[in-house]
């Protein structure tokens, strides 16, 4: 082997090792969580844990159903607010935005993505909560507030990924549709968006992943009552908030129950990602 071939082989191994780092990290996280989480769930009882409606660690009651429902409501709310706005904004940036405005808007969207989540939390506490208080006359914290805040937080993710996937659609789709006589709006929504469907779905799933895992911002605006929310304005506690609020002082079974909560969250994300890859596979 001459020296070039040797260098090639060495570098191949170096890249392989770095790739293995990430795989090993994922495996270690999974192993730790499942090893600590499943025994706890077995001790509490799978039914009691996943479907129990009372979370009172002081009395050994570990039902996380209200938190599961809370996470689902808040994520769904964030999707309802974030996806249409994000998608339409991406359409605007790709097809309608004048170049000078684009040079201004694109970096601003990128800036939104970089703001730390605790800063979003303060923003929500100081600006959104009083608005909700004035408009609806409630305490101001709840599902609606958390959904609005999370919707704003996932906007940059959805906008950036959707925009790049829309730009990646071959120009022939758009121009061909225009040539056939369709209006610009119809061409975009019936030809380009359909062509960029898988990219847009990845954007939505990325946004979903961020919304379901968001913690610090939600803790400050959601109220954190461990009960199933009765209306859009009631307080809610998500799976992530539950872990953060109690991890510092939890002991024994309580701590294991919180790790089991993390396992449930992990399973949710796994399910969402598997659904996405199944849909993508059916596309191609």
């Amino acid at each position: 082997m001459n020296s070039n071939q040797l260098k090639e082989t060495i570098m191949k191994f170096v890249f392989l090792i770095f790739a293995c780092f990430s795989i090993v990290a994922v495996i270690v996280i999974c192993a730790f969580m499942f090893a600590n989480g499943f025994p706890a769930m077995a001790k509490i009882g799978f039914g009691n844990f996943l479907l129990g409606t009372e979370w009172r660690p002081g009395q050994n009651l570990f039902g996380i159903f209200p938190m599961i429902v809370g996470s689902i409501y808040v994520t769904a709310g964030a999707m309802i607010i974030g996806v249409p706005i994000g998608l339409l904004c991406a359409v605007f940036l790709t097809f309608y935005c004048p170049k000078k405005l684009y040079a201004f808007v694109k970096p601003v969207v990128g800036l939104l993505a970089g703001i730390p989540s605790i800063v979003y939390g303060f923003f929500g506490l100081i600006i959104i909560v009083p608005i909700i208080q004035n408009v609806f006359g409630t305490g101001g914290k709840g599902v609606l507030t958390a959904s609005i805040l999370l919707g704003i937080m996932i906007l940059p993710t959805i906008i950036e990924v959707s925009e790049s996937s829309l730009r990646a659609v071959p120009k022939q789709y758009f121009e061909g549709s225009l040539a056939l006589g369709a209006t610009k709006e119809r061409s975009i929504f019936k030809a380009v968006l359909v062509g960029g469907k898988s990219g847009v779905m990845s954007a939505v799933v990325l946004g979903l992943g961020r919304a379901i895992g968001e913690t610090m911002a939600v803790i400050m605006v959601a109220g954190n009552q461990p009960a199933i929310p009765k209306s859009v304005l009631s307080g809610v506690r998500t799976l992530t908030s539950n872990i953060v609020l109690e991890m510092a002082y939890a002991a024994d079974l309580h701590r294991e129950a919180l790790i089991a909560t993390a396992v449930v969250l992990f399973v949710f994300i796994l399910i969402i990602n598997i659904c996405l890859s199944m849909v993508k596979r059916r596309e191609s």
Partner: protein
Amino acid sequence: MKKKILAIAMTALMVVGVAACGSSSSNSTTDSNSTDTAADTTADGMTGPISVISREEGSGTRGAFVELMGIVDDSDNDITTIDAEITNSTSVMLTTVAGNKQSIGYVSLGSLSDDVKAVKVDGVEASVDDIKNGSYSVSRPFLVAYKDGQLSELAQDYLKYILSADGQAIISENGYISVSDSAEAYTASGLSGKLVLAGSTSVSPVMEKLADAYKALNPDVTIEIQQTGSGAGITSAIEGVCDFGMSSRELKESEAAELKADQIALDGIAVIVNNENPTDDISSENIKNIYLGEVTNWEDVK
């Protein structure tokens, strides 16, 4: 050209809509508040649903409050209503009550600020004098917990400082009640090293002042104070991660088996409401029922 005009018109419409919506609703709420207080003849004049604010389960303030007010069931378990909003530190509790007109909460007396109003309980004001003479019963000890026999020399010296006349003077100056009036004076030891204290967000403010004064006398010492909550502080002390765990409630039996606790101060718990709430006095029975979730409107608080 048409599209530009349309776009500008839409943005203008949205801005006007948000501004009008915001100002009209705040106008209407202030109008209804003023007519309510004018026409209302209940003792306090406060109307509307009660927003119950509580602390997280590991909070020493919550543990002491719940025990003193009797918000427990037959096995001494905390049964605060599940609709209570949870704030996870003393400062977030103060900010939340200051920002919510319908709210009621509880906070360490020494941390009380002008952003909120402390109400009288059974006609007794929450003040240091009323706690000392026993008429204000909602009070709890501040403890430092540590593993017996495993304290470093520096840690023992710091503990001696807190319990000395100088340390106790700092405690009295900050609105807490000192534990021993006839303590000895402290002489600087000149030791050096690092101390880590973790725990109650109620104890931390006065602990910071004690640490600063101690460091002024012994400049080679660094003291780190982590505000994690009483429960977390006690757990850290048991695990040996910190020198002292700060707690604002008595230790439970399981904790007392592992740690020794020294009382450094006595602190009252003030029941707080928003500054715009006209209520001045609430009976302890009412407070208990509010936190149990049985009384949900300010009109029902007599």
